[in-house]
């Protein structure tokens, strides 16, 4: 996918989730998405980052990358979270929630333990 690329790298600790939300919402706003989709983007990125952070110590980095194409906006969130087990007591699964908002959302795991959540949506859709 070609287009303008925006990247934010943050320490993998929960205190920085708000920064990731601000970044993602500003990028989405720059792309011209409406407020409803913008809120969905904030939630999806926040969930993806929360699934990628260490709740105790900043032992890693989380990278949020957004590509604004002429017709599609795509987000990638790369970290080392274990989405299979990283969920608060009683809470809905993060990846399920992201997929509810953006049905094309996917989670890839590499052999080195890195994970990447990807989702996209059409502009004007």
């Amino acid at each position, binding site marked *: 996918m070609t287009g303008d690329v925006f990247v934010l790298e943050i320490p993998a600790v*929960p205190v920085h989730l*708000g920064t990731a*939300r601000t970044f993602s919402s500003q990028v989405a706003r720059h792309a011209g998405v409406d407020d409803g989709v913008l809120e969905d983007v904030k939630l999806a990125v926040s969930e993806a980052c929360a699934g990628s952070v260490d709740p105790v110590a900043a032992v890693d980095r989380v990278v949020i990358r957004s590509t604004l194409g002429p017709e599609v906006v795509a987000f990638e969130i790369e970290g080392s979270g274990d989405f299979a087990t990283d969920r608060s007591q009683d*809470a809905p699964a*993060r990846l399920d929630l992201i997929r509810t908002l953006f049905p094309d959302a996917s989670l890839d795991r590499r052999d080195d333990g890195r994970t990447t959540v990807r989702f996209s949506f059409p502009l004007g859709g």
Partner: protein
Amino acid sequence: MLDIVGEVDLYTAPALRDRVASLVDGGVRKLVINLQQVGFMDSSGLGVLIGALRRLKEHDGDLALVCPEGSTLKVLTVTGLDKVFRIHTDLASATAS
């Protein structure tokens, strides 16, 4: 009544969970959580609400939420939790129920 202001996520949810636990441990059985000034809530926050409802039910208590509109109501709706919680649009109806 528990008024929540700001954003509820993985970072802030533990403090909310502790606050709810202290209320229940202190004898509160009917709790109204006011979400009108919550600008953002993720699944960590939802987990706290679900845990609060579970704890209160264990003590024959009850939980009501005040959440008239916005992103918080949407996340409750898309997760199906609007069918689980008693959600009110204003404080008066929540406290009267």
